[in-house]
């Protein structure tokens, strides 16, 4: 048998996940259950995901939908570093939702916890209720504040939730400024058949995404084959972000 390098048989995970996505989009929304799988053995703490999300959503200073926690454990020379990326867990039982006084945030049919920027009054109660620190308040800052100019990338429209929105320093009272903001699993991209930005850009190929209800999706396959856990499982929030270790 001639030797075939294993890598030749490797599947292109992005293409596979895009196919999974297409399949999921054929189903009625309520039958989809979007989930993310993060393989901690492959996460290299590069923060490509963090930056990808910022670039995609043009989030301002202090607003980060996903972050990567890095922790040093042990003492020299027996030291390790562990990395834990943390987007919104899209909890199935989201404690952030019930506390909202104006029902500006809710779980949609597909299980994504969304925020209506035009309703949210910015009370920040939901931030205090989220056990994962996944919500942030938009204070209306711009990276260009204090520099000679605010650059066009900061004021370029974004399409979060499929709405063309402009964050502009001339309107520091316009949503999403003054709102609480968080990861929305890039719902606007999903609906176009595109994967979340952080999934595409992950250079360790540690982040995976797909329909947990579809047994043939890559994420379901990985969850079957590998040991997985969720954060603060004891709270009963039932996150839809799974970690492989």
């Amino acid at each position, binding site marked *: 048998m001639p030797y*075939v390098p294993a*890598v*030749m048989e*490797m599947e292109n995970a*992005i293409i596979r996940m895009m196919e999974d996505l297409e399949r999921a989009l054929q189903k009625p929304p309520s039958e989809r259950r979007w989930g993310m799988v993060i*393989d901690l*053995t*492959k996460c*290299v703490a*590069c*923060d*490509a995901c*963090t*930056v*990808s999300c*910022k*670039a995609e959503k043009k989030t301002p*200073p202090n607003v980060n939908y996903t972050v990567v926690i890095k922790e*040093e454990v*042990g*003492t*020299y020379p027996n*030291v390790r*570093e562990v*990395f834990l990326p943390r987007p919104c867990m899209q909890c199935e039982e989201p404690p952030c939702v019930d506390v909202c006084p104006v029902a500006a945030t809710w779980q*949609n049919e*597909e299980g994504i916890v969304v925020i*209506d920027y*035009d309703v949210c009054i910015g009370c920040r109660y939901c931030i205090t209720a989220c056990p994962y620190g996944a919500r942030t308040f938009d204070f209306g800052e711009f*990276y260009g504040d*204090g520099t*000679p*100019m605010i*650059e*066009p*990338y900061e*004021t*370029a429209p974004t*399409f979060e*939730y499929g709405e063309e929105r*402009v964050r*502009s*320093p001339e*309107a*520091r*009272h*316009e*949503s999403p400024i003054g709102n609480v903001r968080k990861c929305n699993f890039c*719902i*606007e991209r999903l*609906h*176009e058949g*595109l994967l979340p*930005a952080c999934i*595409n*850009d*992950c*250079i360790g*190929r*540690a982040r995976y995404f797909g329909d947990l209800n579809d047994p043939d999706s890559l994420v379901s396959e990985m969850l079957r084959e590998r040991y997985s856990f969720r954060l603060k499982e004891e709270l009963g929030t039932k996150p839809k972000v799974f970690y492989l270790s």
Partner: protein
Amino acid sequence: MSIKDTATDALQETKITRRTFIKTTAVLGGSMVAASAVDGAFQRMAGHEQVFSGVQAAGGYPLNTAETTIYSVCLQCHTACTIKGKILDGVLVKIDGNPYSPMNMLPQISYDTPLDKAARIDAKLCPKGQAGVESLYDPYRITKVLKRAGKRGENKWEVIPFDQAINEIVNGGTFADGSSTPGLKEIWAVQDPDLMKALKEDAMAVASGDMTLDEFKTKHADHLDMLIDPDHPDLGPKNNQFVFQAGRIEHGRKEFAKRWLKDAFGSINWYEHTTICEQSHHIAFQQMTNAYKGNGKWGGGKTHLKPDFANAEMVIFFGTGAFEANFGPTPMSELVTWSLTYRNMKMAVVDPRLSKTAAKAKWWLPVKPGADAALALALGRWIVENERYDAKYLANANKAAAAEDDETSWTNATWLVKIEDGKPTRLLRPNEVGLGDVDGFVVSQGGKLVVVDPNDEENPVEGDLFADGTVNGIQYKSAFQLYKEETMAHSLEEWSDICGIPVRKIEEVAREFTSHGKRVGVDLYRGPVQHTNGYYTGLAIIMLNVLVGNAGWTGGMGPGGSHWHEDGSKSGQPFNIVKGMHPGKLGSFGVPLTREKWHYEKSTLFKRDGYPAKRLWFPYTGNVYQEIIPSAADGYPYPIKALWLHKGTPGYAAPAGNPTLAAIADPNVIPLVIADDIVIGETSMYADYLFPDTAIWERWGTPHTTPAVQSKTSKFRQPMIDPLVEKVTVFGEEQPVSMEAVMLAIAEKMGLPGYGVNGFGDGMDFKTRQDYFLRMAANLAWGDKEDGSDAVPEADDEEFRILREARAHLPKAIFDEERWKKIIGDESLWRRTVYLLNRGGRFEDFSKVYKGEKLAHPYKGLFNIFVDNVASGYHSMTGDHFYGLPFFEPIKDAGGSVLAEESDQYPFRLFSFKHIYGGQSRTVGNYWAQLNVAKENYVLINQADADRLGLQEDQLVKIVSPTNPDGVWKLPNHGVMPIVGKLKPIQGIRPGTVAASWSFGHWAYGASDFIINGEVVKGDPRRATGVCPNAAMYEDPVLNNVSLTDPIGGSASFFDTPVNVVPV
């Protein structure tokens, strides 16, 4: 007004602001905001009943279409990954990876995938690459030409017209303080190519002794005034007194600039940054892989091999890794993580710091900085003692023998080396041992000496690995015997003491490394080589690969897939742009300012001065960056008149930069300094004239691919947006100011040969950067085959539509289809070029990368275990021979004296490293990445050391060293900046060391205020955080104005300085 309208207005407004350079407007615009707040409130009240239901809006996501996509190449770090830019209303809003490219996708999509499909596939990209948006739209970018209005470095500027700047540079100019500069026209002495050639030949003859100086002077009596020093004609013409110093210039621009400076202006002094980068790594590889060209000459050689991470079963990283720096995170990370997780690949990381790669490795070997050779030799010793090397491979003495064993490489392990006075000196030649007057070398076969021709493809020669004897009174040993003796110079315990790694770990790693046949690799980069012993250490590490004979094997070492030739150098290619197409080419000659690629002994200065030379000469290396300005300061070998600093910041990025800054700030040392930059940089702020450059995403380029990529890959950089810089007219053509435009304008003004109408030859004008780069694109589209059989397909009309629509936001000066087509000429070639432009380059199919057990693009050639070429040279200051073998050498100064290591006064060894979010010195404006994910850097120290010294986290400490006891940056005309950072005690660093990551500690680049046309532009304090330790690094105690340097590899020493950290 709808939201959308507001947006477009805002954009237009910012554009207007941009055109008037950077404007100092108060950002928080008072009452207007208040008014809009109230308006907003009522608008919203009226509209809130609009039902929100997740995403319903139709067409709610306009990106990811072929019409909003342009492919280009990143250069936030020098990995130069292929990228996909998404453009919205003319603004580059998002950068992702190019799915066609193996750098971004594993495996990449097929090259013929339709554009609209590919546009939907975003491929991976590292955080810096993505933050490129912010480097492009940096509020501190300069867009107009600046002339100093104060002293150099005082950071007072006036905006002047481009044409005025060109005029003053060519003809001389005066400054506000009354000082003046000479013009380039005074330096452009030799203008006649024939004269240049004649002078060169005769000057060389003088240097070699074939002509006397008097003969020369008589012959060239009319032209002596054109020489820098008529007594030393080998120094070359005065043209050489114009020096071009580039930082990380890339392919495409490199050749562009060389053509201009060396071939048209006639100066030999063209440099890039490599010795402050990794040069000793390159030189170690190159010398080890140097091919024998016959007649005692060596040449060629690969500068960089890398493990095939996708198939290796064990990899050792020496002073580098896969996830933070190296070449580079985007292409390498997934190969490695996939292998770790799915193939159980093992890793060992040799690094005094627990790098991100070490965090995932089975073994972290926190080596003592500078002692990597000891560790490599220890590993070698264990492997040799336990006979775990590939004896069959090593026995092959020539190409034919290698072929017999299905190997593409072979070694000189069996070749015999002369031993004189107990020391190995040179390879034994057949005629020395009575084997006849044939070219070649000698091996022992069971004690019998036979001739070997290294490149012989017919007659296999194998030899004894271990040979030790005497013939004709000449003592000899085989190269492998000598290597073995080097490894045996110390016991494992002694080696362990030197390198600080326990014997047990050395044994474990050596055993694992030799347990996977050829599917193992050792990668090294800056960590082990940016030392005075860098070259020898490099040899010692590369040798581990040679021991297992892994080159060319799947899972072993390879040079990567390489690239098609953009320069047109392959026969049949449409435009032979680099080697030909230069009417009136002037050429250049002489000793470079840095005395590189020259043997001191072969210069007339040697006859004058003998040993020691005034400064080091570098026969085996080039681009000795840190030497350029200090040499000019010493006027050795000659003073210079003008310096062009391009995309480099030697005062900041090189170690021990204080004297460099002092020199560049002094008009007596360098009478004219011009620079081009995208901001006012740490060193470019010392320029007399500062030109804005186009940024990476606005310009053209043909960067080459790193060996971590196994597919053949040609990347093509092209403008994605209308450059923010002003447009100027050169040769009657409107174009953005840039390095290219300045060169073209000077060429026009001075009449340099090979520019303007017919600049490339008949019917081929050279008036804009496009005239150059589009021809390169055409070469790539054509391919390397003479008959064009590997040309890319022709673009169809749909592809043309996309080409146009994706570039609809570009003005004619940037995208002009008719013009582009004319440049390329041939319709079919133009169509192929468009196909390539539409994909950002060309990429070999993934299926072609491996041929079973062998790499499809293997290294084919020799490994020199004994490096005869280097052994033949001398150290220019001690007069000692260099050594032919890997060995462990302590830290030395230029005079060859061993330097003191850590002491009570300076108890720590300083080193530095790159974070994933830092791209050299130019990502400090990346608010999403460097300033978000890091914000600042720290002085890292082991917790135990901190506890012992009673130092606390976040305490401010100063880094002081023997040559910078005050711990300061001395910034002429700008003040003094202490080398102070916040302390961070951690566990993941070797005790006794101190480290600071790179890319912080700025004093320019928007970090401090400057004045333009009398108006203060405020710096951004966020950009001034952290510390850059470079000024604390050792200044050579003999030369006094430059860092320590590896005399063979040329590397500047970054990791050899003993320091102390003092609370402030």
